[in-house]
């Protein structure tokens, strides 16, 4: 049916659509930038860019992991819960110093990712349900470990959250480094190739002798670890551990960024640059609406529109 409608439209429209699919997100970012430069006072200041970038950094980091999972035709709903878990574990073990605390966080996150991955890879549960269980349970565990907000006073953590190198905050540097790393892994490593092959067709990958289960588990562990990094960084920026609200709806923001960035939900293809741009697009959109005193309700409606448009534009790309 999709093919029939594709034939019916003149070739020009198909080309426009293809162009939109590939570059729509960058065009959107550019357009929003241009609009803001004209209508928003004080938009072109270093301080503004810094604020926006610091706000978007955790979303980007989570979205990177989400892009990997979506590339395998999965989805990870537990990222917000992992962020909360990272926050409460950081608070619990910060007494031993920052590094030991980070190690324990990594162990917890890897455990969550392992559970997700095992449910998906070995038991064969659909990703959305497997990670739903961890999403509910993980947030509960975070709250059991640390029932309410706790202020953290640790100079090392504070400098991680608000320090900078040559005026560029650590948060942005870490997000950029992770984005480059993930892009390298997807494009240039065997693991990346295997991941995309599994997303394209899991049975085919299995028949080709790829280590499907191992790759899936590593992908979910990587996603959880990235979410934990985002959780620690957000905690460091807040100077407080807030397992109740940290990472709430983060799974949705991350999925939105990935989808808007041109990664199809059907798997087999991952667009890391687009994912980063997708997160930036949503952040700019939100910031624009807020700066012009439009209420948060408008932001949510606008975000909903952007998601539907992005998915609509990406339609049919899955079926090559």
């Amino acid at each position, binding site marked *: 049916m999709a093919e029939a409608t594709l034939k019916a439209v003149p070739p020009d429209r198909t080309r426009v659509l293809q162009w939109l699919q590939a570059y729509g997100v960058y065009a959107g970012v550019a357009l929003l930038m241009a609009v803001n430069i004209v209508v928003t006072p004080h938009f072109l200041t270093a301080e503004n860019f810094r604020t926006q970038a610091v706000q978007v950094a955790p979303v980007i980091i989570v979205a990177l992991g989400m892009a990997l999972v979506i590339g395998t035709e999965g*989805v990870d709903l537990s990222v917000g819960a992992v962020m909360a878990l990272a926050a409460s574990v950081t608070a619990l073990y910060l007494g031993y110093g920052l590094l030991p605390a980070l190690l324990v966080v990594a162990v917890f996150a890897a455990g969550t990712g392992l559970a997700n991955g095992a449910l998906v890879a070995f038991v064969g549960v659909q990703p959305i349900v497997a990670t739903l269980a961890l999403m509910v349970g993980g947030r509960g565990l975070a709250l059991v470990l640390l029932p309410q907000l706790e202020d953290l006073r640790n100079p090392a953590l504070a400098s991680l959250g608000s320090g900078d190198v040559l005026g560029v905050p650590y948060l942005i540097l870490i997000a950029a480094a992770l984005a480059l790393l993930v892009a390298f892994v997807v494009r240039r490593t065997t693991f990346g190739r295997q991941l995309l092959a599994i997303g394209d067709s899991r049975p085919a990958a299995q028949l080709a002798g790829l280590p499907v289960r191992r790759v899936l588990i590593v992908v979910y562990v990587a996603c959880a670890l990235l979410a934990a990094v985002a959780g620690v960084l957000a905690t460091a920026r807040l100077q407080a551990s807030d397992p109740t609200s940290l990472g709430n709806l983060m799974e949705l923001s991350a999925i939105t960024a990935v989808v808007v960035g041109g990664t199809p939900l059907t798997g087999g293809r991952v667009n890391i640059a687009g994912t980063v741009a997708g997160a930036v697009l949503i952040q700019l959109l939100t910031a624009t609406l807020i700066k012009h005193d439009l209420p*948060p309700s408008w932001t949510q409606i606008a975000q909903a529109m952007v998601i539907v448009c992005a*998915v609509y534009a990406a339609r049919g790309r899955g079926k090559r």
Partner: protein
Amino acid sequence: MSATETDAPVAATRGKGPAPAGEPVGAARSERVSALVQRHGAPAVLVVVSVVASFSFDSFATGDNIANMATSSAFLAIVALGMTFVIITGGIDLSVGSLFALGGVLAAWGSRHGTPVALLLPLVVCGTVGVVNGLLVARSRLAPFIVTLAAMLGARGLMLALTDEGADTYLIGKGSFLAELGQGSTLGLGNPVWITLALFAAGAVVLRRTRFGQHVYAVGGNEDAAALMGAPVARTKVLVYALSGVLAGLAGALNAAWLASGVTILGNGMELEAIAAVVIGGTLLTGGLGYVSGALVGVLLLKVIQNVINQIGSLDSSYQQVVSGAFLAVVVVAQTWLGRRRQLM
């Protein structure tokens, strides 16, 4: 919920695999056990948990506690009923939590114009959102999960816009028919409980005894086959999403009537609770197999666990989430295992 109910879904799953020609008696029995566990596992756990709880806590099996649990389960149960239909078609509806909140606010807002407006407004608006979801899923062939995710954001945005960013809370006047519908009780049980039971009875009949119900199973079992058979796939999908929207709106309206106000912060995470309840009740997320009664059992199980954890007192209420999450994981693992066993045979 009689024995005849089991026939249709089992037949539907059998259709998926190769026909079991001349299977040995042992395999047939084993398959029957699998089906039995899948169908009756959740009710059995519910009974065990309830019995243990009533022996352990004096206050568990009291009339008051049971009536409270029933009323607080009613709203989630109505949402889970709609979710059951959607999940049986192989879809998912993430917008129900927002629609629940929107329905409540609309009902409270509309109650100043009389009860008919207060009841119809949420149903119409939430139903419209459901129809849009359904059209985008069925006609534009977008992934249900992303479409309803967008609807979730949009509906919550709409709700916030209506309430001055959540600052306004509309009240429902005392003594109105709407308030009576939510707060009154008949034969010791709250009116929402009776409404819920009636809706579930109607839902079971629709799913089992009507053409639409059979289409729902067919679409979820194998969409292409259903289309080739001449089942109206797109119309069925639009209808289930519309139904889910309407039921979420109704649940929200009843909840607002119960609370006497349209509380804006409700419904967060409700979609996940509803999905969890439906899955625990034995409905497969892959579609094609499911029970209306399972959703009810799943909701009750979640609420009983919550109640027990509250009764223990010394335990933080966050333990409830841990237990629910772990329970959900165990159920899906068991389901997948049982399902695979059946497919092998």
